[in-house]
């Protein structure tokens, strides 16, 4: 029982990180109706940027982290401007293939630039495990989850209170109306991609400090795809909730059935939810009008 509780807490912590990654998917989907299959690899790119700052250039974490976030946000704007804007008006299938291609480019590029080996990221958090009664939570997982949830909170507040956030939400809910009110819709798409990439960079740093850093880290992004489908592609709250659920499920199955089962759980959840409730737990059901 103690074990189950400890495993559950670790799972929930990992789930918090999934929530942060899921946030990136959801804001892009809400604004542009595109599911970004390269999101996991953008996250990996952010983690490598942090690694370069902190380990190669030997910067302290408070300098390396903003640097990584900025560099990744720039990547996000570049992707929107150079890849997705020329494809606007084409079908969703095309956008899926394009982001899939982008994922391959990033995966290869990271190996060319940084090598395919595992590297250790300089620790960003204190290294003593968190002790709760009789339970131990690894420091990186625990603090990472707290950082992730804090980042989610900050982003949500920014969306609510700033003018830019208001413009972004307006664009997401009705492009034509937003445009007629003087909002520069393409620019909002661009900012949205930058924000998503920035959250991805943060998530990458957290994931990279929990595990090690290697070019296959982007795989987690695909597992999180399952999370956002479960939560509902257009629901921010759904992403957080589903992140916690899937994180917990993974930890528990991984503990009882063996580590290799852990990787397949998100995809089983995914297929089930697609058959039973395609719009997810908190997503809006899609109504099609002709």
């Amino acid at each position: 029982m103690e074990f189950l509780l400890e495993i559950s807490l670790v799972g929930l912590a990992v789930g918090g990180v999934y929530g942060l990654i899921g946030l990136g998917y959801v804001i892009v989907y809400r604004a542009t109706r595109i599911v970004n299959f390269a999101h996991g690899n953008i996250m990996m790119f952010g983690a490598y940027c942090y690694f370069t700052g902190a380990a190669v250039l030997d910067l302290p974490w408070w300098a390396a982290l903003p640097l990584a976030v900025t560099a990744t946000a720039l990547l996000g704007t570049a992707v929107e401007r150079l890849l997705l804007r020329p494809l606007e008006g084409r079908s969703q299938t095309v956008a899926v293939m394009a982001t899939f291609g982008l994922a391959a480019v990033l995966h290869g590029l990271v190996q060319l630039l940084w090598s395919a080996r595992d590297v250790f990221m300089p620790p960003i958090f204190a290294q003593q495990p968190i002790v709760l009664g009789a339970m131990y939570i690894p420091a990186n997982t625990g603090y990472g989850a707290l950082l992730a949830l804090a980042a989610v909170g900050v982003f949500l507040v920014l969306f609510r209170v700033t003018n830019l956030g208001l413009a972004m939400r307006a664009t997401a809910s009705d492009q034509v109306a937003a445009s007629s009110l003087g909002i520069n819709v393409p620019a909002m798409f661009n900012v949205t991609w930058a924000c998503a990439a920035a959250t991805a960079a943060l998530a990458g740093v957290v994931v990279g400090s929990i595990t090690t850093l290697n070019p296959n880290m982007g795989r987690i992004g695909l597992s999180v795809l399952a999370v956002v489908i479960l939560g509902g592609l257009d629901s921010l709250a759904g992403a957080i909730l589903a992140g916690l659920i899937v994180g917990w499920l993974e930890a528990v199955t991984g503990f009882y059935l063996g580590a290799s089962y852990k990787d397949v759980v998100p995809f089983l959840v995914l297929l089930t939810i697609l058959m039973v409730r395609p719009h997810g737990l908190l997503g809006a059901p899609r109504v099609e009008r002709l």
Partner: protein
Amino acid sequence: MTGPGATDTSANVPSRSGRAEPRRRGQVDAAPHPAALHSAAAAAGGGHAAAARRAGGAALAVAVLVAVPLFGNSYHLHMACLFGIIVISAMGLNLLTGYAGLISLGHAAFMGVGAYGVAWFSSRLGLPFYLCLPLAGLLAAGAGMVTGLPSLRIKGLYLAIATLAAQFILGFVFNEWESVTGGRGGTNVAPAQVGGLLLSTEREMYYPIAAVAVASLLAARNLFRTRVGRAFMAMRDRDSAAEVLGVDPRRYQLVAFGVSSFFAGIAGGFMAYFYKVVTPGQFSFQLSLFYLTAIVVGGMGTVQGVLLGAIFMTATPSALAAVAGVFGPLAAGLLAPLREVLFGLLIVLFLIFEPGGLAGIIGRTRKRIMLITAAKE
């Protein structure tokens, strides 16, 4: 409707036809274009000649295909077999993505089902080669249709995600179901045998692969003159309109998944006989990327595009390896990531700049040449 850009017409159909219509009306009064006259004459008087030319081309193609093993060395034959396998599998993916407008990010996994199917049918049940392959195809078709099952409720984007899930779930099964798949180390496949003849080398595998590749191209081409094929394209171009006309999209989506995976399963089965070993690593995510690149570069929704894509994808990895070989052993380690970057870039660039793929480029060039020659006459 198989021209360039036909795969993503949902957004721009109205605007395109809206622009095209007045222009067409204006042309009624104008003098007929020389090219139009030329083609009209060809249609009226030269139908017989065209048929004869086509028959001649087919005879030539068959002669070349039959002659390859007589003149090629084992490297040529190795590449020819790979090419044939790529043609079969890419045709399957193109049926799904190019013709039916559905996308699969898990094509490699269905090939894997076929390959493991062959391994199992031949070693456990001792079935002969000519039974194993179709059975493996059917097995893969079953797996494909199960993956397509969510399509009863969802479409488009969600379906793409479902195929991605299938890729990972099947990959997990290949790795973990050790009693059948042999786990991570994979399983060996005995060489194919027909009667007393052992098909163990490239030279002997060549004819069956070539025959099936040709058959699959012909089958695919003819499929689009049937009710099912036309239903696929109607579904792709405007699914709600297709539904109004009596095409049940759910049923035909399942059929498309089944047919596409059947091709993949056959190709995977050939891979098993060709390499004589089946491992989970062969059917990774990267292979799905490979086939997606093949159809996007070749040209979605055309048989010609499959051939061009397969030629391109057979040649590119060896060309890359040759280039890397010049730079010595250091560059060899960079080969896999380089290939990935290249494939990804090709997908992206072709989608943006040339949605019709190589087939689109060739079609346009041919039209231009015809216009020029017609103008000269």
